[in-house]
């Protein structure tokens, strides 16, 4: 068991290396440090000395893979690939373009991100499961069809409209909560209420439909027929048997995205001015800070792979038929 899990964890290493190499190619070979420097210093009015100076101050003045000016192993280690890309495996992300330590920034911003993403995820899961069960309870009737059509309609609204609409009605017209902003600590509840509510509502369409189809699949299985034949009433079948079995795919799916909650939500955070990782990414993209984008790509991929790994564990843990070996 433990050996299996360790082996699965080792599978992640080549993939992470691939991600690392891919981002390195994108950021250093397609777009050379010269180009990046030129973009930051302004395309037109820039001379060679200014570019060299910028590269030196940001640590970009090294060769890509092989350093001829060094001796022994330094020919391979004193390169951009090792300094800027491989160093991420040791969680050294370097400095952002405005000179701040990226690793420290990420640690600080994970909290606010989680304070929205985690409650939104849990409440959303609960809401979607209950709504889906409700639809399954009334399956094949008018309510079910209307419910599915509402779910499709909810899915068809862009996430931007949920945020803009919710901000406008609840915060601007009714003035229940502040429009945007954040304070650390317990007082933040006023600020996170609306983002959480909007994230939950925006996810209902998709989640409800997805879980409904899972439950419907379960309800067609043999054990349900057996339960009916035993004379169990419908509510018992639904809440004891179908719910429990349907939770297997739902929970394992949830476990896969659990680590990614750290990344926060790009749209919600930047609309509500929450200093989390989502808005960090948006800011970095808008100010073309490639160092931050690279770091976030690495962390995002690592979290995704952890999610895959956790799914493996969860399958073996929840479903005794799956044996890990």
């Amino acid at each position, binding site marked *: 068991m433990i050996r299996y899990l360790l082996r699965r964890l080792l599978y992640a290493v080549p993939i992470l290396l691939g991600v690392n190499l891919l981002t390195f190619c*994108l950021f250093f070979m397609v777009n050379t440090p010269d180009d990046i420097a030129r973009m930051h210093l302004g*395309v037109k009015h820039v001379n060679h000395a200014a570019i060299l100076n910028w590269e030196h101050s940001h640590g970009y003045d090294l060769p890509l893979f092989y350093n001829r000016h060094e001796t022994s192993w330094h020919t391979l280690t004193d390169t951009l690939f090792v300094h800027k890309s491989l160093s991420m495996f040791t969680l050294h992300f370097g400095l952002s373009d405005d000179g701040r330590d990226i690793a420290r920034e990420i640690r600080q911003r994970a909290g606010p991100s989680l304070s929205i993403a985690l409650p939104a995820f849990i409440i959303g899961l609960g809401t979607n499961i209950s709504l889906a069960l409700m639809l399954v309870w009334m399956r094949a009737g008018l309510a079910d069809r209307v419910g599915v059509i509402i779910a499709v309609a909810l899915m*068809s609204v862009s996430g931007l409209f949920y945020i803009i609409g919710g901000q406008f009605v609840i915060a601007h017209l009714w003035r229940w909560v502040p429009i945007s902003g954040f304070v650390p600590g317990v007082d933040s509840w006023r600020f996170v209420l609306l983002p959480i509510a909007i994230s939950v509502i925006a996810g209902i369409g998709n989640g409800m439909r997805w879980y409904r189809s899972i439950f419907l699949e379960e309800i067609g299985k043999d054990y349900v027929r057996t339960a009916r034949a035993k004379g169990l009433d419908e509510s018992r079948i639904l809440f004891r048997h179908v719910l429990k079995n349907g939770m297997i795919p739902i929970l394992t799916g949830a476990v896969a995205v659990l680590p990614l909650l750290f990344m926060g939500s790009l749209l919600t955070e930047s609309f509500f001015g929450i200093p989390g990782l989502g808005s960090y990414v948006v800011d970095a*993209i808008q100010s073309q800070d490639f160092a931050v984008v690279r770091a976030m790509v690495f962390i*995002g991929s690592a979290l995704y792979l952890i999610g895959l790994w956790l799914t493996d564990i969860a399958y073996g843990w929840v479903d005794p038929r799956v044996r890990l070996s």
Partner: protein
Amino acid sequence: MTQWQPVILWTDGLAWFGIALMLILLFASRAQMRAGWQRLWQHPLAVVSMLILLCYGSIGLLDSLHYRVRLPTINKRVQYSVTVYSVLDALLTPLRTHNETSYAAPLARRAFSATPERHAGGEVVEVRKPLQLGGHTPPHARMELALRGALYGGITGIGLLLAIVFIIRTFAARTTAPEQHVAPDPEPKFSWPKFSWPKFPWPKFPWPKFPWRSFSLTLLFLSMLIGSTIELAGNFHVFGTNEIGQDVLYDSIKSVRTGLMMGCLATLVTLPLAVGLGLAAGYFGGWVDDLVQYIYTTLNAIPSVLLIAATVLLMQGFIETHPAMFDSTASRSDIRLLFLCVILGMTNWTGLCRILRGETLKLRELDYVQAARAFGVPSWRILWQHLLPNLSHLILISLVMDFSGLVLAEAVLSYIGVGVDPSTHSWGNMINAARLELSREPVIWWPLMAAFIGMFTLVLAANLFADAVREAFDPLAKR
């Protein structure tokens, strides 16, 4: 001498190519898909959403035929204007040319905000000036115009319907086999007298259970809606104007092309990657399979928004440092749109590839493939003739299901700042511009509303259609 010169932008050419490719693929696998199409076209929602999608599609295609106007000849040299117009622009000329100075509410006759004006007596009065378009139309004309347009549209719609029915009955019916006899349902013992629609000779071919009622009602509704919009748009700004006085309806209609391009071109990129790699991995197995799996797991691991953002930023840098390659703003924004579609396609193929790989693994072991192998049929031929047609329903389902997501992604990417060029008409750009207008007092809501309606209708239709397609083609789906 012609007065105009056709211009084929990259996205135009690819869009037409994509449509041709799609039709060829569908034709090639028609035998395997026939039952699916039959099932699809008896689903009322599929027919209704298809009609709406067709409306959007024709707007997008009209907007993909570009041309340049010839300028007056100087020194006997033929010159063409720098600005590129599309056929749609030519049709919408009144909307494009009647620009106001600033905001105007939907169907308004006077400007939204007052401007100071000096009267003859010397006093300064705040006046809301009458608009260029709508300012001189009598106030009661709106209802009249709308009703007249609906009437005209309705008549056109009925004419169109009759024409369709006539064409199918005269041309298609001859080639069909004799009608199948359907056993009538056993009569219930007692039933209330039911309202029955007047019998009409609806054609039974090509799809015996085609929901003609939903089809004709939707066609009628759409043509009435379009009719009254056309009538109103000639005399008013139907959705008002934006901050710089441009017609919002025009903006929203022009955005249709961008949205559709996102969905279609990204798909066009997805298709060869997913199909090629998925089939190869499933059929050949071994190291090919390992490699393909490694590639898609790696690509999947990268958060897609970040990958898209990073590549778009790099592309922006490339365009900035090579201005000579893109001669006009139109071609620059077009290249940017194309590039965005390519990137979206590159990040989007993994799902379909995984499905196709799994399915090919299964099909490979079936007897007919084994037999073909034993006969020494070359691999490419097995893949092309025996495997691909039997996977085409999966491809179709997956493409249709992904379409709406791509349209929605455009808006989000534009908001983050890595979307289409700011000069391109798109719903994302409209939302982006309209976001701050909501906090004004009094509220400017119409640009946002126009973008919402345009986008929501398209995505809803695409989602409903995708559901119907999955139900009709997926052998595992519940019916």
